[in-house]
């Protein structure tokens, strides 16, 4: 009893995150990592290039995080640690953040990493990256001396360190990319790439493989340990699974299909973890057009939500591997508020709401037609749910027509052009709501032609003002309250119906030490990963 009390006091005094961070560092629990060996990694995605400063998407970010360093890094409990920056100080008003760079840190070509490179990297990211909010609050980066970078902010940015802790903000060389060419199309995003991270780009064969070698001059006493990382790009889903089974590959991150996960979990030499995705927060949802058609009426949107059986989707379609989503923020986030209207399956409520909205059933029992789009990828999370909606919504008198898109651009054009009634979608939280959540709900982010902007065209001034406050609030408790209120309001307005959190798993060989399990998983550096016993 005494022991228990003592534990509770410790938990109360220390912040929960710090406690876990101190006790659960994987390095402390295990023997010292060994150097050497090759890691073969399977991926479904084809990177266009490797510069994550100007390109989002895991295809670029995962190798990008190995090739480029960042100022700071995050562990698996959201704690921020030094990386290319040795230390940092935040001013009392939260408007100035000064980073002290690590001495002796060099780019792959031997040039020292200076504050000018940091300033250049931030400016490049701000000008070119599709996520405008991640570093949107940064007004400028001052460089009082080569080892000090001072971020001057327009407003406090509570997620600044998190945004700087991943491939969203790589440190790129000014002496390479500052030559006046468009960085988005810079030839050295692929060829003769000069990075700042623990691995060097050796070779990229388009749509086949990426070979990365250990950076021998990486100025760290702790890693990188692997000699080589080979990313094998395999487009066929079952071929990826077979490559893992046959030990031709030893790590398979971003597994999202429950069949693959079930199958690989039967292999004795493979371990499967759901760690490494906490900051991704991938929400599968049904988006509504809130301006046009029957779904402009909030009662219709609510009725559709009540008519969808989330449990069926999770258990029958996803083999119980996905988790329910009840709002815009994924349950893994510290800002998650589950105390909102969750629209649990209720056909009578759905019918009553439709009656109230004046949509009476016709002679065939149908009230109206609804066209549902879906992304032509991740079928279990998209097509299967869209197809489920047809029999499900028929029960309340909505005749669903599923509209296939032959390829991603076709789908993106329809949705971003607001030419849709309802669409399945998957959108990532990206760690902090400022980075990945705000964009879907702000009135001023209704941008025709931009996918994953506010394509629902939802606009509620109250939500706008809450998000604006939460975006610059630095007090954690106050932010939690603001986001709690935000989640309650949007759950009532229901511009989209959040269905589930997509299962994301990493399968890896059991002899692999320190698999990528930080909140950013493989989109953060794998310099700690090593072979306990090298597989033949």
């Amino acid at each position, binding site marked *: 009893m005494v022991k228990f009390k003592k534990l509770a006091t410790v938990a109360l005094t220390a912040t929960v995150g710090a406690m876990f961070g101190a006790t659960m560092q994987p390095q402390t629990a295990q023997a010292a990592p060994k150097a050497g060996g090759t890691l073969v990694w399977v991926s479904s995605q084809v990177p266009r290039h490797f510069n994550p400063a100007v390109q989002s998407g895991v295809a670029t970010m995962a190798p990008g995080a190995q090739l480029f360093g960042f100022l700071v890094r995050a562990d698996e409990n959201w704690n921020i640690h030094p990386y290319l920056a040795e230390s940092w100080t935040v001013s009392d008003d939260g408007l100035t953040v000064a980073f002290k760079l690590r001495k002796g840190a060099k780019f792959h070509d031997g040039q020292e990493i200076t504050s000018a490179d940091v300033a250049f990297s931030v400016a490049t990211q701000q000008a070119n990256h599709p996520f405008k909010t991640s570093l949107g609050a940064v007004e400028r980066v001052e460089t009082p001396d080569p080892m000090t970078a001072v971020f001057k902010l327009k407003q406090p940015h509570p997620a600044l360190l998190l945004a700087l802790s991943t491939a969203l903000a790589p440190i790129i060389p000014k002496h390479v990319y500052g030559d006046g060419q468009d960085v988005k199309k810079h030839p050295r995003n692929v060829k003769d790439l000069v990075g700042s991270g623990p691995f060097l780009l050796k070779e990229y064969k388009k749509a086949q493989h990426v070979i990365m070698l250990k950076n021998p001059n990486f100025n760290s006493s702790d890693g990188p340990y692997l000699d080589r990382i080979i990313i094998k790009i395999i487009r066929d889903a079952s071929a990826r699974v077979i490559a893992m089974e046959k030990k031709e590959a030893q790590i398979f991150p971003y597994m999202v299909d429950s069949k693959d996960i079930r199958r690989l979990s039967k292999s004795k030499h493979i371990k499967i973890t759901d760690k490494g995705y906490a900051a991704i927060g991938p929400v599968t949802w049904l988006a509504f057009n809130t301006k046009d058609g029957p779904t402009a009426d909030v009662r219709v949107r609510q009725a559709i939500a009540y008519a969808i059986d989330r449990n069926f989707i999770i258990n029958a379609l996803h083999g119980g591997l996905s988790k329910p989503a009840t709002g815009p923020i994924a349950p893994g986030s510290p800002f998650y508020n589950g105390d909102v209207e969750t629209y649990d399956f209720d056909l009578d409520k759905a019918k009553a709401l439709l009656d109230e909205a004046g949509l009476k059933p016709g002679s065939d029992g149908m009230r109206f037609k609804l066209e549902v789009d879906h992304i032509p990828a991740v079928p279990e999370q998209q097509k299967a749910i869209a197809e489920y909606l047809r029999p499900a919504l028929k029960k309340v008198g909505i005749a669903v027509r599923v509209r296939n898109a*032959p390829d991603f651009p076709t789908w993106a054009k329809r949705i971003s052009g607001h030419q849709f009634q309802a669409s399945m979608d998957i959108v990532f939280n990206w760690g902090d709501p400022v980075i990945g959540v705000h964009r879907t709900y702000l009135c001023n982010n209704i941008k025709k032609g931009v996918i994953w902007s506010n394509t629902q065209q939802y606009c509620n001034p109250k939500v706008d003002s809450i998000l604006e406050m939460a975006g610059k609030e630095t007090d954690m408790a106050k932010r939690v309250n603001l986001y709690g209120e935000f989640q309650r309001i949007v759950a009532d307005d229901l511009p989209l119906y959040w269905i589930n959190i997509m299962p994301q798993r990493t399968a890896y060989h059991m002899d692999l030490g320190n698999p990528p399990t930080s909140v950013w998983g493989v989109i953060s550096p794998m310099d700690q990963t090593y072979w306990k016993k090298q597989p033949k």
Partner: protein
Amino acid sequence: MTDQVEPSAPAAPKLEPDFVPEVEKPWLQTWRMFAKNRAALFGLVLLSVIVGMAVLGPTLYPADPYDIVWAPQSPPGTEGFILGTDYLGRDLLAGIIYGSRATLIVGAAAALITIVIGILVGALAGYYRGWVEELLMRITEFFQVLPPLLLAMVLVLLFSPTLVTISIAIGVVSWTATARLARAEFLRIRELEYVKGARSIGARNSRIIWLVILPNAAPPLIVSAAFAVGIAILFEAGLSFLELNDPNIMSWGYMIGSNRPYVLESWWAVTFPGIAIFLTVLAVSLIGDGLNDALNPRLRQR
């Protein structure tokens, strides 16, 4: 041939009764030849059953093939669902019954388009010869060198996939063989005596093409039409397999395509629609084969 022999006037040659059985009506003769071929008869029976299922099935087995009726991936026989359920829990038997309609409609419509384009092009080229033939045959060759399934995919992608666009796409990519066949027949027949005769009494070109030559060129074209139906059904299945289909219309190809990722866990969901396609194409091919035998004058006397 006649059983009765006239007792009186044996010297007077009675042409009429002797001749009537000899010039049996052509369609009757064809049927007699066709019926001799057991395999062709089997094909006909099979196709009749499938068409019967498409026409009457929904009345006998009223169900919405899209309804979720039981737990997903239930094996055949579960709770009275004799073919089991697919990955969403939809009744596979209902899917096969309702899907037969789309499959047969696409097969027939695409074959019709194939035949119409093919005959039109082949007839004009074979009859007029000269620059008309040059032009039409170059166009035919242009279509022949394009891989048909790829071209059909492009066409379906350009215009969103519906039954109409899929039928047109399949027809547009598969008419070339028919056109070449029709041209060869027209080239042969246009030089025959009766065509020359028709021309010499002043028949117009259109009359000669459609009323004189075409009926005589019909037998191989009918056979090719029968095969075109089978090919079109396979094409439809192939396009659906690649998800180039209308997901709101149940078809066998769609059933296979949408259940394909789950094949290791529920074999039945792809196997039964596959068998259905196999049987239909087999039936159509057997009929085509039988027609080939029955309509070929050289084989008639065997």
